[in-house]
């Protein structure tokens, strides 16, 4: 177990340089030890310890682990200390950027180093897992039911839209429509642009309804009742 640390700006810089070297074909290990010392990181809280050797099978498991770990911590403090998310990304780099036949496939930097921009902050694989799980618990499964290194289309489509991702009733309604309880995975075809009532259509329809109805005050049931016929297939899908 390790005390939770907070990567400093200079630590983030070295981490970013490491990502760049790996992208360019480098094969070195992540600089965990180097960046876990001053001046690259500072103590955040010794009251919070994390297990560096954990292998998470999914992002929901990762989110649930962090939710338990941070349960007594102030949300504002956690979110205003960007460096803790980046230090965790470094600590669990093998989870979020695994070696596959000796090669790591490094995706966009925002997945590993937290962006301060609202247009892509939600892509951080560690923060995103904790944030969505801590807000929605079970109903985060559409976003987080994937390996720790994946940023799926559900997250990209829904978490990027502030009106949607902050609406608890709506997130529950989305889960009702598109989560397949029997198979423990999203319903097949829900992200297929050619299918009626797919997720992108839902986003468009919600955008229209939001102009008229006070959707934030509505329950999932009330929102489902507002949806037009094209969504009936998903509502009736006998999996719940």
């Amino acid at each position, binding site marked *: 177990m390790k005390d939770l640390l907070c990567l400093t700006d200079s630590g983030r810089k070295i981490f970013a340089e490491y990502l760049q070297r790996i992208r360019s074909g480098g094969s070195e290990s992540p600089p965990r030890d180097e960046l876990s010392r*001053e001046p690259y990181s*500072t*103590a955040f809280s010794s009251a919070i310890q994390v297990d560096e050797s954990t292998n998470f099978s999914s992002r929901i498991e990762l989110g649930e682990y962090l939710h338990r770990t941070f349960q007594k911590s102030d949300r*504002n403090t956690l979110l205003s200390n960007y460096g803790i998310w980046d230090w965790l990304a470094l600590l669990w780099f093998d989870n979020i950027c695994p070696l596959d036949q000796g090669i790591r496939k490094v995706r966009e930097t925002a997945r590993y180093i937290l962006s301060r921009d*609202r247009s892509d902050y*939600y892509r951080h694989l560690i923060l995103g897992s904790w944030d969505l799980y801590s807000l929605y618990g079970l109903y985060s499964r559409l976003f987080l039911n994937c390996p720790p290194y994946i940023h799926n289309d559900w997250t990209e489509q829904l978490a990027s839209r502030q009106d949607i991702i902050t609406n608890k009733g709506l997130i529950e309604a989305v889960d009702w429509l598109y989560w397949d309880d029997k198979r423990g995975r999203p319903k097949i075809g829900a992200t297929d642009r050619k299918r009626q009532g797919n997720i992108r259509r839902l986003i468009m329809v919600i955008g229209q309804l939001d*102009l008229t*109805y*006070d959707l934030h005050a*509505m329950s999932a049931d009330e929102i489902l009742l507002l949806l037009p016929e094209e969504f009936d297939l998903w509502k009736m899908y006998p999996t719940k």
Partner: protein
Amino acid sequence: MKRRINFTQRKKIPRDRIVLNLMEHMGQKSFDAGFNFQGMGLPDHAAVYVEAYHKTDYMRYPFGTVSQIRKPDTRMGSLGRIENLHFRVKIVDESGNKGLILAVADGIKPEAPPQRRSILPVDFKEMGNQIWRLSFDADGPILELNSTIPFIRDKAKRDPRLFFYIFPSVIRNILIHLIFYNEFDSDEPEEWHRDWLNYGQRYAGPPPSVLEREKDSFDWDEVIQWIDRVVTEFGISHQDEWDKLIQLEEKG
């Protein structure tokens, strides 16, 4: 030019009809809001909501109705990203079984609380083998930290050990200096005197009524006890940092 068609007949609330101010009291953030809906043709019974949001954070505050505004508890403690919040004001007709939005103002950036001025500027300089010391000029005390200590700037902000080693003594020293050495004058207190007595009052209540040493009613013991109380309550109010310090010390 793009034409916009408003099918919903939803009204836009002009920004100048809303006043939204952030507030901070004892570290607790909240906001205050005022509205002027006169002449907008909104029904008296329509509900007024203020929504605070940023990224995944969202909170909704009911402010009564158009004709009867009632301020709710507006503390924002459970929100995660208070610094960058935006606000939305919604007028909702709830007379049917679904809330219909009648008017809205979105993307409101609140007025910040009055700019906070530090009452204890910090200076970093070489000072031999001392960790810290206080200096005083006409504007008040300055905390000096030894710049030769590695990472002192970062430690000063985050290290709970340094926090408790330094600040209780700093506060005690400043108040003693103010009352016993600086010739406090209650009729014309200097600005920094007023600031620091207000600061002490936040923790220990009003200071003794007489703080001028030359007056007969000056009570030395009462003053020292008040300063003690300020320092004690300062420590108690930083329980989280204290817990961190204890954990660090336990680990050696």
